[in-house]
């Protein structure tokens, strides 16, 4: 049976002399692997469609086992992402995170929209580090984590001073600070920013410029949740760590305007 799906190539792995196994995350079918025969040959019409980050329509011949990728039509090749090592690294991180968090073939249209919007934003030269943080926050429910960010996790209060608690996975108000000795106290703008990262769709964020320290702070919270509650370690994280060690070789393609607080 031939199925036409709208999808994004999450990853590829070589198979045999000239074939590739392409993992496509589609709006209609969820995550699915398909064999792209001959895709490693330079003359193959599947060569460009089977590159990671490619957003397009894919025609998959579905049999008993793994399907075969028959044709593809590119909607957006995300070329500008590939042309810079900095954007490639962050986009790879997002792809790997999505790939690790979904293991079934059930459709996940909301998750697909998050991924598509994130890649589009990076290719439109939005800050890739900030976009990857948005994705990390938005994917927490997919990982089974539902942080309480609209009120205090303990008493339900919506006013007062707030802090982030890793044991409660959410905000604690100043009245409940004593229940967790390891809270991270938040300023009102940090509270607002965390809520923005978690709730506002990526395509509605606009050109957000964040200070390096602000991104570092938001990253620290979300990464701690992933490492303590979800327990995943991404390979692309290792690469990003290397990047941060030698920033002189990994500066973004275009210099951003002078950093300003949100």
């Amino acid at each position: 049976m031939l199925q036409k799906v709208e999808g994004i190539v999450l990853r590829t792995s070589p198979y045999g002399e000239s074939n590739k196994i392409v993992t496509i995350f589609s709006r209609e079918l969820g995550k699915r692997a398909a064999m792209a025969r001959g895709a490693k040959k330079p003359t193959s019409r599947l060569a460009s469609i089977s590159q990671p980050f490619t957003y397009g329509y894919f025609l998959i011949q579905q049999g008993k086992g793994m399907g075969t990728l028959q044709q593809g039509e590119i909607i957006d090749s995300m070329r500008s992402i590939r042309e810079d090592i900095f954007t490639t690294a962050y986009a790879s991180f997002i792809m790997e995170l999505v790939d690790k968090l979904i293991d079934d073939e059930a459709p996940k249209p909301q998750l697909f929209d998050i991924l598509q919007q994130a890649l589009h934003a990076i290719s439109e030269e939005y800050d890739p580090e900030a976009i990857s943080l948005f994705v990390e926050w938005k994917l927490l429910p997919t990982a089974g984590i539902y942080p309480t960010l609209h009120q205090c996790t303990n008493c339900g209060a919506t006013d007062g001073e707030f802090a982030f608690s890793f044991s409660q996975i959410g905000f604690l108000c100043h009245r409940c600070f004593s229940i967790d000795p390891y809270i991270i106290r938040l300023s009102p703008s940090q509270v607002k920013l965390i809520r923005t990262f978690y709730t506002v769709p990526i395509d509605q964020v606009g050109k957000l410029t964040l200070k390096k320290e602000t991104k570092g702070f938001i990253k620290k919270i979300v990464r701690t949740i992933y490492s303590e509650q979800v327990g995943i370690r991404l390979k692309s994280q290792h690469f990003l760590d290397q990047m941060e060690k030698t920033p002189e070789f990994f500066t973004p393609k275009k210099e951003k305007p002078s950093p300003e607080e949100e």
Partner: protein
Amino acid sequence: MHYPEPISKLIDSFMKLPGIGPKTAARLAFFVLTMKEDTVLDFAKALVDAKRNLSFCSVCGHITDIDPCHICQDQQRDASLICVVQDTKDVIALEKMRDYNGRYHVLHGAISPMDGIGPEDINVPSLLKRLQNTEIEELILATNPTIEGEATAMYISRLVKPSGIKTTRIAHGLPVGGDLEYADEVTLSKALEGRREL
């Protein structure tokens, strides 16, 4: 079905090769039984020799039986030109062309953010050491036109640029004998970008 021990060992050995499953391994093992003893001995010797006598060239990283390799030792070759490739098989492919007279540098991989392979994991330090040689004038980045290959080329070009050595990237575009009508938009736009005056 239980095979006698020597043949089941042979089947197990063939199964260690990539793309060989139990059926193919059994077919190959039974074929070996029909071969002449001398041919089998030559075959076994070739396997052992390849493993024992081959190593990586200390200069360029290409596979060789002498160190430095034939290409690095060849004085007829242009020492000012280095072509950086991902794999030893890429050297063979470029050598088949018989048009390139410079030297090579084999990276043994490519930077792949998705697989966590960073610059520290490929043969970049020895390239930087080579570039300290003032004789070198141009570095041709001939990594694959994939995400990994592009990332590697970008990284090396940024690394080398301050030294003033000319860094070039091989062209991307339509394959010889290909049909323009069936080319995808990424390839076509790359081909247009790299157009040249006739």
